[in-house]
Each structure stands twice: as C-alpha cells, then as structure tokens.
C-alpha cells in the first residue's frame, strides 16, 4: 500500500488533536452560551424599585435598541462594571434597563444613591424567577436587545471597557441604523 500515507497520517492526526486542544483549552467553560440569542426576550413584568422610575416589562423593550443589565447590590463584580454604565448613561447613546436581582429594596436604593443610577428603568426581580426566564445564572449579566425586542447579545460577568467598546457598542450602533 501507500507507505508514505502511513507516515503522514499520524502526523496529521497529531496536528489535528493539537489544534483541537489549543482551541479547547482557551475556551472558558464557565461561560455558557445562551440559547436565547436571536430569540424574543421572555415575557415578563417587573415592578419598579422606587416611585420615580418605571419598572420593566417586555413591552418596554420594543421600539428601541437597549441594554438590559442584571445587577444586585450584594454583587461585587456589579460594582466593578458600574462606572462603565454611568459613563454610558451620560453619553445617552443607548438606554440601560436594570433588573435588580434578588436584592433588598433598601440595599439596592442605597447602592444606586452612593454609586449613581445609570438605569432608565428598573424592574425588581425579588425571587429571581424572571432572571431564570432570561437564562441568567450569575450576576452581572448584560443583554443587547434590538428594536423588535429580540436578544442579540449576552455578556456574562462584569463588562470590561474592551467588551463594551469593541463588541457591545458597535453592535448597538449597527442595530440602531
């Protein structure tokens, strides 16, 4: 038979496996891809946190590109990403809606008073049930919603300036056109 093939085949196999490992080992298993991407946002209706700001429901996601951020006052990483949202809110490029996850109202209000409130709407998800509808498995999580109310992107964990500048904002601008 073709003797050369016998020598080449193991090398090809080895390279294939090496590539597989190189890709596989870089992949972070704690990031679970969302099955909700490109699906309509779940139907939900959350009450407001305080009287001066509306709550959040599915209907509010229609008509405008928006970000939905799941946060809690007890969540450390939320504090890390918070300045980015404050900055984004000042720019006014895209509305940021908050889902306050399993929090005490007083704590959440104090958190927003101390650090600033970047949200246009805040829905209170006291028992975390709506978060399950969104496939949330850790806070913070941030979703990009298009005009039709479809989930277009999800980021798990605190936003970094890179993710915001290189992924989220370009996507938002693209969707806004």
């Amino acid at each position: 038979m073709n003797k050369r093939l016998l020598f080449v085949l193991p090398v090809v196999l080895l390279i294939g496996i090496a590539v597989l490992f190189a890709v596989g080992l870089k992949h972070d298993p704690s990031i679970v891809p969302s099955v909700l991407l490109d699906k309509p946002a779940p139907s939900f209706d959350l009450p407001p946190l305080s009287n001066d700001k509306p709550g959040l429901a599915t209907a509010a996601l229609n008509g405008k590109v928006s970000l939905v951020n799941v946060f809690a006052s007890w969540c450390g990483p939320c504090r890390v990403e918070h300045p980015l949202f404050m900055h984004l809110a000042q720019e006014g490029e895209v509305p940021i809606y908050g889902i306050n996850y399993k929090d005490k109202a007083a704590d959440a209000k104090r958190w927003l008073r101390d650090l600033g409130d970047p949200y246009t709407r805040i829905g209170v998800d006291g028992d975390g049930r709506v978060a399950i509808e969104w496939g949330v498995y850790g806070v913070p999580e941030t979703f990009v919603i298009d005009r039709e109310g479809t989930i277009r992107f999800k980021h798990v964990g605190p936003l970094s300036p890179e993710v915001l500048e290189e992924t989220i904002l370009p996507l938002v601008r693209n969707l806004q056109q």
Partner: protein
Amino acid sequence: MRALFAALLLAFSLGPAFAVEPEEMLDDPALEARAREISKELRCLVCQNQSIDDSNAGLARDLRVLVRERLTAGDSNEDALSYIVARYGDFVLLRPPVSPRTYALWFGPALLFVIAGLGLVVFYRRRQAAPAETPPPPLTEEERARLETLMDEDRKP
C-alpha cells in the same frame, strides 16, 4: 461509652447529606421522587459539576423549586426538563443529548474502536496473505563440517 457508640453509629448511618431542604419538598411522595430524579439530571450552572440536587447555590434552589412547580402544574418529566433546557440550553443537562452536535462525543469512541479493529484485521490478513518465505537452501558440506566442529567445541569442556 455506650452513648458515644450510639452517637457514632447514628452519625455514620445517616448517609450523604442532600441539598434539598425540607420546606422545598412536595407533600406527594411520588411527585417528590420525580422531582428528585429530574434534579439529578440538571447541572447547577453556578458550580458546574454538581447537579442542582446536590448544590446549595441559590440558583440551584430556585431551579429545584421551579421543577417542583412544573410537576405540580401537571408537567411530565420531559416537559419539566425541556422547560429548563429552553432557558439554559443543552449544557444544563448533565447527560448530553444525542444530536448532530454530540455525535462525535457519543459515537467517536465506538468509531475509533472499529477503526482499530479493522486495522488489526487488515494487518493479520496481510501477514497471512504474504507469500510463505522460501525455505533456506540446505547447508553445503563445508558448512555442515564447520557447524559440527563448532558444536563439538561447545560439548567438550
């Protein structure tokens, strides 16, 4: 001493601790048993190698309660599982489903086994099919004599 022994016996007879808390449990033992069965199939996404049945994480608790609610509402086991899968994806299942994406996972080992087996068969077939080696020519007189002397040398001492 006796009390200590009794205490130890009791401590070791308790078996593994479960994360399921009494107030989560359903009154109907049949439904509760089904809920436990389903919970063992579902991955806790916070602590990924535990099932939600084992995990103390808040989300695992919420999902256990959710599963029990679905069952009480009349869902079948499959309905309850697919309700969770629709939100968290196949990854939430500890036993990956057989689908085109997981064919390599499910059938890869068997395929490798078959390939190895075929390889062995081909190898032995080829060895058998190879023309039998022609027997070496008989020794010449000269060689035979030399062999004898060599053998004698060995036998002597």
